[in-house]
């Protein structure tokens, strides 16, 4: 599935006011969920084109209700740990406080530590180590704690 097909799917969803779409084709599956306040380009579109499988851009509606998103404040590359080979800042299930560093976003050779804005438990990690991210992209979902 390439970028053009992804964009066509998105237009289909938008035109019919569909919030969530899942397509399975030849062993590959993509699930796209629209978030009303954000860009319609799915996070998966940020990956370089040669990617064979596309990551799901969100979770089913019932799973995200009540979860607090941690969004990227900048454009850059997402890293889970302070350095290659080091322990990730957080894992699923960890409790974070307001101000806890949860990841690094590298932009223009500068490593920016991204902090949680609220206290919570890490419910989902939505991006992979080394993945390019855009402004406003959801990186983590936290359960209020």
């Amino acid at each position, binding site marked *: 599935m390439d*970028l053009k097909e992804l964009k066509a799917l998105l237009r289909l969803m938008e035109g019919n006011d569909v919030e969530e779409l899942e397509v399975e084709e030849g062993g590959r599956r993509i699930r796209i969920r629209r978030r009303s306040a954000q860009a319609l380009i799915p996070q998966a579109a940020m990956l370089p084109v040669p990617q064979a499988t596309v990551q799901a851009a969100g979770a089913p509606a019932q799973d995200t209700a009540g979860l607090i998103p941690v969004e990227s404040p900048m454009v850059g590359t997402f890293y889970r740990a302070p350095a290659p080979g080091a322990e990730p800042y957080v894992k699923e299930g960890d409790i974070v406080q307001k101000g806890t560093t949860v990841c690094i976003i590298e*932009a223009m050779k500068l490593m920016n530590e991204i902090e949680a804005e609220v206290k919570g438990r890490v419910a989902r990690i939505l991006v992979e180590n080394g993945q390019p991210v855009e402004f406003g992209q959801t990186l983590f979902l936290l359960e209020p704690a």
Partner: protein
Amino acid sequence: MFSKVLIANRGEIAVRIIQACRELGIRTVAVFSQADADALHVQLADEAVCIGPPQAAQSYLKVAAIISAAEITGAEAIHPGYGFLAENPHFAEVCEGCGIRFIGPSASSIQMMGDKAAARRMAAAQGVPVLPGSQHPVRDLEEARRVARDIGYPVIIKASAGGGGKGMRVVPEPDALESALATAAAEAAAAFGDAAVYLERFLPDPRHVEIQILMDGQGQGIHLGERDCSIQRRHQKLLEEAPSPALTDALRQAMGRAALSVAQAAGYRNAGTVEFLLDERGSFYFMEMNTRIQVEHPVTEMVTGVDLVKAQLRIAAGEPLPLSQADVRISGHSLECRINAEDPDRFLPSPGRLTNFRPPGGPGVRVDSHAYAGYVVPPYYDSLLGKVIVHAHDRGEAIARMQRALDEMQIEGVQTTIPFHQKVLRHPDFLAGRTSTRFLERLLQEQ
């Protein structure tokens, strides 16, 4: 040639640049703020990166966000369009420092021409006529009085770091100098972060005529003739044409040579525009140089057949100029109307959803626009909806064609300046080619 270019802009010019890239087989990366998620340039590009919230300062003007977007997408070059970071020497420098080609001149050329007083001195040093004026920004009221007496009233005060009509004040006689100096300096400081102002003789009713130039990386330069942009409201151009009704071919060649000598002295590269004022006697005076592609570039494209944006991409990729001065031919006449989402009487912005957008078509009509039916015009950026450009055999036919095209065009949901253009196109002074920078002021007073 580049395989991937990032367009650091939005709106109609981003669409224009994407069009040129696609025709050259270059992959495109769009950047967008959260207010532009549905924008046409985002839909047309091969890849798109959200770079920030709606405010331009946190998105389209944010150097780090744009460079970061280029790095994560692997873009080799950035086209800055016009406005935003297009004439920001720091941005050009950062691009080069990060190994990304900036599609335009060098950071030092941008810097040089951005200092308007210094650009004047450079033009004068090349023997290009400049209006009598101060060599350097004036230090204080005393110096301003002396300079103004030497130049002769009326004088105009202009911001050295400026443009776009801000930080300018006309001073008709000596008593008005002190307060005009204070307000111009304050405006300049607020708009450009630099209160330095210089003085120039004020021409009461000139034409604004600018010359398009192209220079390659091997020091070769050509000019592509002029554009007459006299129809302006508060120094904002509204309607442009090529060629100018006031120019003979001899004057065109003289102005072209003058423009190139300024560009060459600045070590310029890529597309640029040298602006002149023309008085009633046909004498021309250097005003400033714009180191970017301009909004009104299409009228030059129509009469010369040269695609200026493709030329920019080619020059930036290291290619030599596609043609020599002898190859440049001006053919027919072209007009452009800037269609703004504004109230046509008071020119106040009119954002909102376009319930209908039906551009005109037919022979000799071109529309450069990012608008479409259903598009929501955001309130955060300029109000330009698009440009309607026509080309025909002569000025009379071009005017009839533009009248026809604007009558045919339908835009609903926002107010537009189309009714205002229709008035201009029927005004006897416009039809007779008797336009100057005060034409609009007079037309608006007649109402």
